């Protein structure tokens, strides 16, 4: 394989992801209008894209570009927090299982299997129904609480492999204290796996949040999220195409970038 092409191919998804995150952070300053302002709900409602409103307006005359930008912050923010929760909990559980071994490991892994068997969207919908209206923080927490299983599995396998490997066995033979062993030797060695787990979790969290909002169970109005902007099209996707197209592009771009990043990380990791 051509090395140079590989390098440039490695770079674009990360660049794309970085610029999306940047847009998310800077969204409020980039947005030309207040995302909730309804300047004229009679004359300016549901306008197709124009110079004044490059992404058009929604049925309340709100500027879709501003809403998509603000939504980036919310949608990506929720996904990021969710991933942080999921990866830290999953890693803790996976590593604990692998280090403890024996029946603790098989018990924890069976719990993981059971949690994996429950379809995540259903679990989230159930929780959303139970809590009524969910705040963005709650949504992030729920997404995190239902997303740790993949990480737990990955980390458990990797830890087991590392524990059996020469480096850790050597360190243990040298009498390195247990805590130091875990922090200095195991944790850095786990980092690539955590990177893979984080990107995989991210690629799953973004569409889930959008799907929940699309079902009307996610972010509450008037706060914009990519999913609920699509919902505003009200099923009339032909007449209101701009309400579907632009948030969709944002979702697809961010998931695509994360997926590619995940794949590259995995390849680099297994190769190295």
């Amino acid at each position, binding site marked *: 394989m051509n090395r140079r092409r590989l390098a440039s191919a490695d770079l674009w998804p990360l660049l794309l992801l970085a610029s999306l995150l940047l847009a998310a952070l800077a969204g409020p300053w980039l947005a030309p209008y207040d995302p909730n302002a309804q300047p004229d709900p009679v004359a300016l409602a549901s306008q197709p894209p124009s110079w004044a409103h490059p992404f058009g307006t929604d049925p309340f005359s709100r500027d879709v570009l501003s809403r998509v930008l603000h939504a980036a912050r919310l949608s990506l923010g929720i996904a990021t927090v969710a991933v942080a929760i999921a990866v830290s909990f999953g890693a803790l559980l996976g590593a604990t299982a692998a280090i403890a071994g024996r029946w603790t490991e098989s018990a924890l892994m069976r719990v993981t299997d059971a949690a994996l068997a429950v379809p995540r969207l*259903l679990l989230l919908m*159930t929780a959303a129904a139970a809590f009524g209206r969910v705040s963005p923080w709650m949504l992030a927490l729920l997404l995190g609480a239902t997303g740790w299983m993949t990480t737990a599995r990955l980390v458990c396998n990797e830890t087991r492999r590392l524990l059996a490997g020469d480096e850790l066995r050597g360190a243990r033979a040298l009498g390195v204290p247990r805590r130091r062993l875990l922090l200095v030797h195991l944790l850095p060695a786990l980092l690539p796996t955590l990177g893979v787990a984080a990107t995989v979790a991210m690629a799953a969290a973004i569409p889930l949040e959008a799907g929940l909002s699309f079902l009307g169970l996610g972010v509450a109005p008037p706060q914009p999220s990519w999913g609920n902007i699509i919902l505003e099209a009200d099923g009339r996707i032909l007449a209101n195409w701009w309400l579907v197209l632009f948030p969709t592009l944002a*979702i697809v771009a961010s998931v695509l970038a994360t997926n590619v990043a995940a794949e590259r990380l995995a390849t680099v990791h297994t190769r190295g």
Partner: protein
Amino acid sequence: MRRVLLARLGQGAIVIALVVTIGFVLIRLMPGDPFVAALDNEGVAPQLRDQLRAQYGFDRPLPEQFLRFIGQLLRGDLGWSFSRSQPVATVLGDVLPATALLMGTALLLGGIGGVLVGAWQGWRGDTSGTRWVSRASLLLLSVPEFVLALLFVLGPALLLGWFPVAGMQSDFAGSGLAALRDLLHHLVLPAGTLALLIGAVVARHQRRAVLGVADAEFVRAARAKGVPESRVLFRHALRNALVPVLTLAGVVFPALVSGAVLVERVFAWPGMGRAIVEAVLRRDYPLVVGAVMVSSLFVVLGTMLADLAVAWADPRQRRA
């Protein structure tokens, strides 16, 4: 083989027990009790609520409730759905065939299609053709299910009018062959949406797996013996490369159920996904939890079957 089977069954039983426990915990987590949302209005007498609570054992201590819950499950009693005024088991029994048809078709089409595409990609190696297919499958993986479903509604159904927009059958589908044709006509778009998504996942793993065995020793040996290339691919390489794809089941099945919820919503497919969305919106907790448990059991069983298939396909595991 028998030992593998027993071990898998044992593990499956443990997982099922855990799923059932999760179901029970979910019911308990709901605000108030399942009767609040359905019966809490002035028109309903407090005695009726108490009577139902007693009937379903909600006035008993938790451990006893759990035992009752298990007992009812064993008898196939999943509780009472308030939004539909029917037993939960009846509601799920009504919608399950539609979902099974949708998911079965999608799994079959997506699985076979994905394996073939992935095998072709892996076998041909890095050409511009395979690279484009790779990009396309990655793009597909990045499109949320509901967006893909909306696009299918927009194009083939609304703009071109080739397929019905929604539902599973026409109001007057006729009978026999006409009914079957009508059903298949309705099935194309929703099953196609899910099949594409499954196909994309499977193809990506299959490609990698075939790449892995493409220059394995037994393949080279087969080639050296003069076995035709297509035969090498199908008889030797593919069978071994199927193993990692089968292990995907644990990931694909839950994703399939979640995907079906959204796809059924968009296409108004009268299956379990649509029943769940409605139940959630109506706070019909017994139906929600029943549906979650049934779909989880489906996932566990599916994964177990896939594991057994792995044991069959992979001689190394068969001996273990």
